[in-house]
């Protein structure tokens, strides 16, 4: 049942302007002194820290309401500053401009005849009824007013109003003082306000010019006392001091009849201070700065942006029971686990309510004190706090070595203990940026020595973590419901299959893949002692491999059999291997015999590589989860990673720059290829110069030439790579890694051994730099390969200075692209999330919002959960057929 009833609905939220009289009415005191405290440290009356504005020191009582600080205490009270001269409010300059443009300075009426006003009134009514923005009507009205030359009512000549950012208005180029603006706005009659998109009840236009400034309560701008005893005031207080100071000087000068010039200067200064008090990032004026040079954080800055009140304190907050430290790998942990350093485990706690059933256990825990160990010095969880609730008063008692026994005796059912972390506790683990739901998963705690968080390497891909100094966060769940939810929904094993593409996002990486590849490639014969050592790493074996004897009587096992020890006995599957160079290949008649056929849990043919067990691709992992569930999948990944590491450790594996060594003959061939390519390019350029180049359809001559050259350079690199590749076989570590999908690609290798290739900026050969040439090393107008960023050296050989420069240009573009992309896509994602976060798939598979309005009648139109699908599809027909065939 979907409940369509709305329980509560916000009818509307109204924002109105404060009128000067309202500001005075709510003011607890007028503020006239720019100073805060006197020499004895007491607040000065009618100063910015006047006790009538509220209190910040505990114990003191507020002079206005008589309450103390704290919850249900004094909320603080506004004061006010009477401005000697009016100033424009920066937040409303656009509205003021519109008002001035639409009305007559003489009579204050809108510059249109009554008939037109009536039309606009009707249009406005209609817009509101239809739910359109009535501000659009104002826009049209303003457009019409632009062409009016004389006021239709009093005949006054209409001046051209300009806004000189940020706060100066001009009529026909002549400056309008804020006083003049205010006088003008005062003349606008109430009945014309709706057409100016101003609600009479909400505001009078002249209120947009300030004559009195509210002073926020001290609770809004508390001062802090440094250790040195020095007082440090809030940025707002600093700014208010400035306002009061200038205000005073302005008042004195005006009253003393000072020259107009001086008064005007001070008036502008007051405008500057009020403007920056409201918004210190107003364009067109320098931001007000602290003595240290740091720009002040004034009103607008408190609310705006990522560090503002909304995003930093309301949408997201700091939390307790969390920890952050550097991460490091631990292949002996399960993917579901996380290693937590002892120091952190002692600090983070889980609340346990004492009941008659667990009272003895709780007492025992408390008795241990805050830092217990076993007799041989191993970690034991202790208790940090005991929480007693009496008559609504919460009392926290810290458990110490000394009081542990006493406190333990006093423990009663109903009290809570805050117990330190222990093995098996469930926690949330997170790495920023949290771009998808797998960025925050639940792990089981394993308390470990040293100072880093540790986890299984297979969990790196979902977090996008590596160990070059990455830090991660950990949150301890505090309630039973939270723990249950985390256990069922958030555990790592529930996220092995990604909801993005229906394949595994958690799986073997790097050495795991290399290890399994070495074990199964060419069905390696592994001497018995080595085989047993590898097998000993696997804790949960499905079966033991058979032992064979060779002609010398030496016992050995087959690598594929060793790997098969992990496979469930009834698993039958076949899939193409990554190393197989004949895609798409039918494993049954694979020419290289590398594609995998598994029957009844035994590898009959093929080699285990990225396509079998890798994160993102692993067909074996997908299948095992489909057939044996997330538990089976977790076990398999845990074991496969251990097996891979054991195998690679036993066989030994290393790579170095000599993996890219190729014979002299090959080097000569590559050089020849590159020479040919360069000649070809020179030839192309020559034809082009002679005007004999045939343009490609839809391209001009220059484009055609560039395309042809790019093709030649691309081909040259590929050929160089092929030549190098011919001498880099599967006995080469780097090639093993590339071909098995463990790390790197053949392109990487051919760039190291063969030739780096054409460098490009914006998809074109490099053409920027000096006049008519890229660098002064080349002739002007040169179009040859070298002059336009072709790098014919290999990384191993090393780049020439010009090549190096071009390579850096290409590399820089990549860096800039990523920097730009992340910020843009981040903003895009924020908006998408805000728009979609409250949608929910209901029981009937419709997608509805919180008002239970239907968004989609069937989730994804087909109702399929990609995480539980076969690569995005509801059913895998081939799988069903092969199952039936297999069962025959």
């Amino acid at each position: 049942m979907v409940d369509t009833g709305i329980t509560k609905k916000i009818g509307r939220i109204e924002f109105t302007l404060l009128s000067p009289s309202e500001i005075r009415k709510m003011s607890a005191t007028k503020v006239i002194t720019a100073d805060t405290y006197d020499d004895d440290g007491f607040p000065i009356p009618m100063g910015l820290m006047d006790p009538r504005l509220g209190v910040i020191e505990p114990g003191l009582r507020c002079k206005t309401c008589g309450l103390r600080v704290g919850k249900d205490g004094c909320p603080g009270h506004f004061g006010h500053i009477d401005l000697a001269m009016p100033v424009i409010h920066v937040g409303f300059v656009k509205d003021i401009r519109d008002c001035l443009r639409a009305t007559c300075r003489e009579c204050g009426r809108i510059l249109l005849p009554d008939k037109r006003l009536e039309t606009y009134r009707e249009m406005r009514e209609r817009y509101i009824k239809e739910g359109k923005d009535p501000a659009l009507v104002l826009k049209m009205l303003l457009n019409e007013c632009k062409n009016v030359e004389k006021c239709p009512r009093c005949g006054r000549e209409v001046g051209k109003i300009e806004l000189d950012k940020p706060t100066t208005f001009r009529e026909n180029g002549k400056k309008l003082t804020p006083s003049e603006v205010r006088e003008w706005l005062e003349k606008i009659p109430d009945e014309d306000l709706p057409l100016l998109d101003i609600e009479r009840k909400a505001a009078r236009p002249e209120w947009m010019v300030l004559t009195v400034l509210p002073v926020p309560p001290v609770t809004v701008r508390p001062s802090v006392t440094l250790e040195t005893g020095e007082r440090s005031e809030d940025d707002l207080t600093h700014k208010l001091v400035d306002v009061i100071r200038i205000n005073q000087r302005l008042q004195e000068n005006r009253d003393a009849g000072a020259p107009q010039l001086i008064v005007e200067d001070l008036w502008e200064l007051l405008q500057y201070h009020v403007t920056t008090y409201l918004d210190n990032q107003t364009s067109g004026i320098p931001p007000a700065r602290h003595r240290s040079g740091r720009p002040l954080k004034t009103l607008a800055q408190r609310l705006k942006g990522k560090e503002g009140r909304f995003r930093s304190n309301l949408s997201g907050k700091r939390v307790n029971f969390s920890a952050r430290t550097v991460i490091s790998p631990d292949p002996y942990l399960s993917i579901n686990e996380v290693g937590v350093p002892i120091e952190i485990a002692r600090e983070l706690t889980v609340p346990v309510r004492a009941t008659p059933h667990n009272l003895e256990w709780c007492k025992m825990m408390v008795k241990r004190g805050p830092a217990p160990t076993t007799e041989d010095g191993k970690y034991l969880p202790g208790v940090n706090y005991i929480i007693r609730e009496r008559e609504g008063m919460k009392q926290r008692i810290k458990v110490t070595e000394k009081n542990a026994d006493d406190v333990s005796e006093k423990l009663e059912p109903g009290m809570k203990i805050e117990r330190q972390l222990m093995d098996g506790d469930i926690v949330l683990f997170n790495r920023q940026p949290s771009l998808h739901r797998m960025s925050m998963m639940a792990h089981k705690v394993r308390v470990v020595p040293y100072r880093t968080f540790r986890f299984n390497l297979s969990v790196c891909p979902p977090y996008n973590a590596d160990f070059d100094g990455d830090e991660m966060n950990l949150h301890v769940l505090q309630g039973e419901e939270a723990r249950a939810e985390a256990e069922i929904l958030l555990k790592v094993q529930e996220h092995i299959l990604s909801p993005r593409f229906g394949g595994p996002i958690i799986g073997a990486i790097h050495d795991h893949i290399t290890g399994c590849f070495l074990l199964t490639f060419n069905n390696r014969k592994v001497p018995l002692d080595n085989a047993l050592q590898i097998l000993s790493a696997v804790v949960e074996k499905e079966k033991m491999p058979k032992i064979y004897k060779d002609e010398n009587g030496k016992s050995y096992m087959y690598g594929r059999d060793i790997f098969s020890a992990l496979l469930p006995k009834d698993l039958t599957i076949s899939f193409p291997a990554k190393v197989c160079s004949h895609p798409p290949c039918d494993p049954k008649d694979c020419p290289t015999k590398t594609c995998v056929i598994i029957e009844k849990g035994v590898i009959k043919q093929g080699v285990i590589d990225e396509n079998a067990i890798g994160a993102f691709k692993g067909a074996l992992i997908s299948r095992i989860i489909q057939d044996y569930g997330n538990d089976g999948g977790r076990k398999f990944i845990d074991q496969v990673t251990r097996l891979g590491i054991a195998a690679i450790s036993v066989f030994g594996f290393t790579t170095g720059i000599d993996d890219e060594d190729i014979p002299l003959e090959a080097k000569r061939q590559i050089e020849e290829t590159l020479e040919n390519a360069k000649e070809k390019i020179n030839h192309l350029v020559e034809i082009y110069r002679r005007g004999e180049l045939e343009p490609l359809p839809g391209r001009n001559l220059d484009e055609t030439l560039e395309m042809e050259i790019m093709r030649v350079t691309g081909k040259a690199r590929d050929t160089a790579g092929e030549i190098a590749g011919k001498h880099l076989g599967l006995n080469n570590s780097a090639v093993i890694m590339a071909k098995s999908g463990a790390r790197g690609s053949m392109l990487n290798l051919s760039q190291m051994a063969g030739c780096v290739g054409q460098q490009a900026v914006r998809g074109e050969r490099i053409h920027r730099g000096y006049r008519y040439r890229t660098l002064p090393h080349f002739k002007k107008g040169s179009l040859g390969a070298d002059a336009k960023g072709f790098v014919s050296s290999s990384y191993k050989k090393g780049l020439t200075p010009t090549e190096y420069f071009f390579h850096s240009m290409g590399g820089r573009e990549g860096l800039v692209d990523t920097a730009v992309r992340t910020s843009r896509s981040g903003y895009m994602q924020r908006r998408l999330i805000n728009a979609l976060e409250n949608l929910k798939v209901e029981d009937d598979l419709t997608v509805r919002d919180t008002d239970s309005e239907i968004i989609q009648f069937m989730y994804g139109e087909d109702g399929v959960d990609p995480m539980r699908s076969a690569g995005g599809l509801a059913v895998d027909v081939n799988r069903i057929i092969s199952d039936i065939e297999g069962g025959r």
Partner: protein
Amino acid sequence: MTKKRFNILEHELVPEHIVLSKEEAEKVLEHYNIKPEKLPKILASDPVVRTINAKPGDIIKIIRKSRTAKKAVSYRVVVEETTAPTLMKK
């Protein structure tokens, strides 16, 4: 002389729109346990709505081609004007 107008219903990118009868509409609402205003909306001024001559309050069944499900059915209620929440009080 009247120009022969192009029939948008025949355009490949315009999905099939069917005006539901009272009984059919009733059935749809019951199936989804929903009030008409909770359905997605379509303006009475929408070209297709005008072509098939649907009136405000009618429920239209739309059958689209779908990449995931081949055919996707959805329903929309015809409205006079948008009922999107306004910024101003009425």
